[in-house]
């Protein structure tokens, strides 16, 4: 067993990156975002974790756009970024309103549609 591996045979674990690698990274990011949404109680933290899940979806779209040779996936990511920006704008406005009127940002305490 030589110290230096021959150049034509990559050492174990350094297999070329395929579509599946990117998809599994995306799934990992999505699961972390889901864990955040289910464990955090702060409205702002929930919004941040939704952003994480959006980004996981973006990664999957771009990976498939590369694998299929179709730029449509990247256009979809462009739309997702736009929708996420709109969602964050309205969500943060609601969070400011909650903090101002109910004096709380805990999602458990905000259970009424009208007060």
């Amino acid at each position, binding site marked *: 067993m030589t110290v230096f591996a021959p150049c034509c045979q*990559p050492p174990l674990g*350094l*297999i*070329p*990156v395929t*579509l*599946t*690698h*990117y*998809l*599994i*990274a995306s*799934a990992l*990011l*999505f*699961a*972390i*975002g*889901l*864990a*955040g949404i*289910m*464990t*955090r109680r702060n409205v*702002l*933290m929930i*919004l*941040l974790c939704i*952003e*994480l899940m959006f*980004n996981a979806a973006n*990664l999957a779209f*771009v990976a498939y*756009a*590369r*694998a*299929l*040779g179709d*730029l*449509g996936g*990247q*256009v979809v990511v*462009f*739309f997702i*970024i*736009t*929708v*996420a*920006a*709109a969602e*964050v*704008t*309205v969500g*943060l*406005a*609601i*969070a*400011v*309103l909650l903090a101002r009127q109910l004096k709380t*940002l805990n999602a458990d305490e905000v259970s009424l549609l009208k007060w």
Partner: protein
Amino acid sequence: MAETVFFYLFTTLMVLSALSVVFSRRPIYSVLSLLIAMFCLAALFVMLGAYLVAALQVLLYAGAVLVLFLFVIMLLNLEPEASARMRVFTLRTTGTLAALLLFFALFGILRGAGQPTPPGAQATPGTVESVGRLIFTTYLLPFELTSFLILAAIIGAVTLAKQHSNE
């Protein structure tokens, strides 16, 4: 070879910062960790040939969305979340378990999915020109509709956050 090394480097950093987003107590730390995750994701997009999307990721997410988050968090002066309640603990356990379950389900599905059939032509890189051409020809109608969405979001945000002067 270099791609493999950079993939694992950026993915590890991205996953660690994503975990830090979820589990750090202070909201400011969460937002700054998300910033790191966004930059790692932009690096992955560059590796996948999506140059315009990577630039948009840095400009829009890191530049606009996260700054908005920072503004609101500093404006509201959030306290670290209260902890050590029984209900919170069970919630945390079930939430983490559900996320793990989802991840392993996705993992199994994605492993079994395999590679799609490779395209006949060489994959074009997602430069401003190629993606922009696609947006303004094939996807023109959805692109125009996003302007309505943004207009609605602006109006909604302004109406919601406006101080009611008559009260």
